[in-house]
């Protein structure tokens, strides 16, 4: 099995990643904590948002000064976009900052649930793929939509486990497993993971990766929780590759029943 684990490669498009954990950079107390948490998570890619520069505060610290985009891959997102044109505008600007082609598309349909609008998402994926973007798509856990995204050329399918920032864990295991089974591109759980064991469960189910933000940033000790997630993802992946034992309804003694004293 060791040999198998060594050959286990996580690839999105043509890019190979060391870690199957992708982390967000939002909701931290400050940029120092953000940088430390990323380091202890072992992630080699982080999501980032695109926003206006504050021109009245020239001394405001920049994310890029704390998290070096030459060492950690930035995955620009479209968080806060509720339609295709805003999402396209955001990602085209993001590409201009640093030439990134790998992006996270996220088009929301409802302010309360932040549930993805799949009609806008499908439409936008098509345009982005045509423009040469490698698109990782935040989506519902509906296998049909996931398949359509893959057919349109999405580089990864990223279904929600539960609403963004809810920390509720995986709510529809059946749908997630159907998506895993049918997909030829990586399936990455995005949104809804609450704690390290949720990530292990996702990985044991056969997900290719997980994307975590709130569960780390909002933990009492985010830097330590980032490390917990690092190991949780590794544990889940190794467990998946190892193949779990069969479930039995009755006990089966672990120690030999022969040669007992008495």
């Amino acid at each position, binding site marked *: 099995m060791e040999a198998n684990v060594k050959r286990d490669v996580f690839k999105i498009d043509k890019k190979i990643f060391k870690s199957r954990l992708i982390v967000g950079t939002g*909701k931290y107390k400050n940029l120092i904590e953000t940088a430390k948490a990323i380091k202890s998570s072992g992630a080699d890619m982080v999501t*980032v948002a695109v926003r*206006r*520069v504050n*021109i009245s505060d020239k001394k405001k610290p920049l994310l890029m000064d704390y998290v070096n*985009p030459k060492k950690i891959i930035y995955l620009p997102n479209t968080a806060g976009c509720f339609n295709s044109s805003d999402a396209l505008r955001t990602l085209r600007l993001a590409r201009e900052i640093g030439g990134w082609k790998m992006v996270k598309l996220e088009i929301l349909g409802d302010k309360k649930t932040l549930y993805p609008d799949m009609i806008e998402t499908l439409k936008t994926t098509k345009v982005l793929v045509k423009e040469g973007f490698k698109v990782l798509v935040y989506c519902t856990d509906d296998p049909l939509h996931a398949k359509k995204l893959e057919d349109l050329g999405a580089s990864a399918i990223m279904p929600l486990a539960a609403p963004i920032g809810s920390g509720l864990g995986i709510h529809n295991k059946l749908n997630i497993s159907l998506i895993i089974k049918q997909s030829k591109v990586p399936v990455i759980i995005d949104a809804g993971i609450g704690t390290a064991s949720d990530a292990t469960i996702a990985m044991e189910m056969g997900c290719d990766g997980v994307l975590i933000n709130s569960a780390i940033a909002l933990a009492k000790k985010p830097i330590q929780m980032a490390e917990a997630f690092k190991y949780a993802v590794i544990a889940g992946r190794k467990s998946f590759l190892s193949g779990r034992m069969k479930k039995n309804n009755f006990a089966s003694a672990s120690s030999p029943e022969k040669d007992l004293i008495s």
Partner: protein
Amino acid sequence: MAKIQINGKKVALKQNFSILEVLKKYKLNRKKVAIELNGKIIPQNKYDKKKLKNNDKIEIVQFIGGG
């Protein structure tokens, strides 16, 4: 003077101010931002050539923390 809008704020700048000069004025690193002028993205290598005129609207964006 030219009255322009930067990120929604009204600003008065000297005539013929270039985008590069705007970046200098606000102490912004050209490698850490992207710029839209009247809805069109301006490539980094054209910042010095692009001069601003009255009623122009600029958006200057950067990366911040997000999930």
